[in-house]
């Protein structure tokens, strides 16, 4: 395992603005959906909001836990692949 070569302050100095912009992008994305007038939340947005809750858990390994939140946890192969694409979140999230 390699040590992180940067101090906490150096990490914040270097990456804060990039991630401030990403948070604003998420906020603008959700506002855009709200302005569309739809009352029903898409399963992907429900999953995204769960991920945002997870961000505030304060524990380590947020990335791994969020990827797991966005994963299909069934274990058996499906009968038939009726599509080739992936949606980014399991429909049951």
């Amino acid at each position: 395992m390699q040590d992180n070569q940067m101090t906490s302050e150096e990490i914040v100095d270097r990456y804060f603005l990039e991630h401030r912009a990403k948070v604003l992008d998420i906020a603008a994305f959700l506002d855009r959906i709200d302005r569309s007038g739809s009352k029903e939340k898409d399963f992907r947005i429900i999953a995204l909001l769960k991920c945002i809750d997870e961000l505030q858990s304060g524990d380590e390994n947020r990335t791994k836990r969020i990827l797991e939140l966005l994963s299909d946890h069934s274990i058996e192969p499906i009968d038939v692949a009726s599509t080739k694409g992936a949606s980014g979140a399991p429909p049951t999230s």
Partner: protein
Amino acid sequence: MSYIDPHIHMVSRTTDDYQRMAQAGCVAITEPAFWAGFDRSSSQGFFDYFRQLTDTEPKRAATYGIKHHCWLCINPKEAEDVGFAREVISIIPEFLDCPTVLGIGEIGLNKNSKNELIILEEQLALAESANQLVLVHTPHLEDKLKGTNLIMDAIDNTSLDPTRVLIDHVEEHTIKSVLDRGFWAGMTLYPDSKCTPQRAADCIEMYGTDRLWINSAGDWGPSDPLAVPKCRLELASRGHSEELINTISFGNPLDFLSKSGKFSIS
């Protein structure tokens, strides 16, 4: 410093990309057979594709001083029709003696279906019988965690040596189990899905460099053929040593690919 991009789909890229990669220090690439963005209508389409991978692309790469090698298979996105997939598998052996073919890949799963799994197992059997290296594609997004586990279980049911199998497209939720089970792991650097160069650098800091490589998997979708040098720059800017950067982007791919007995950068 030279680097190897061990997973990139140059049939989908322009000659300008070869030039820019060479200028950035790329000396060798390997190109797995993959889904072209549409389903091919016959196994003859794959025969032509394999000729492109074994004949045309090495010449195009050589123009820029880049050594080109490839992997052959039918990809999981075209494996749902088992009969069709078997036709394609039947034409692979005649290409395996080609001097630039390194093994079977990128095989794996896409939607984790029963038929995809059957074709994965049959291609693993081909790799076993022909003593080939294996390059594995793991599924996208929500299907990755389940698919990675199914793939590792399928490989464990063969006699294949896990140190001759690289499982690609790992992320934070799959990297540890892949390495713990003895396989090599690849991190693909994509702008929207898979790992960004920053997250790949994080994983290197958390898991080290043993049995791990980085690649761009540049193709016809959102992707960046210069992602490997960008990750090298990210590591350098964090203060990591030239030795570490060289290991992850040159030494490790050289070690794994050399197990084929065919890989060369000269």
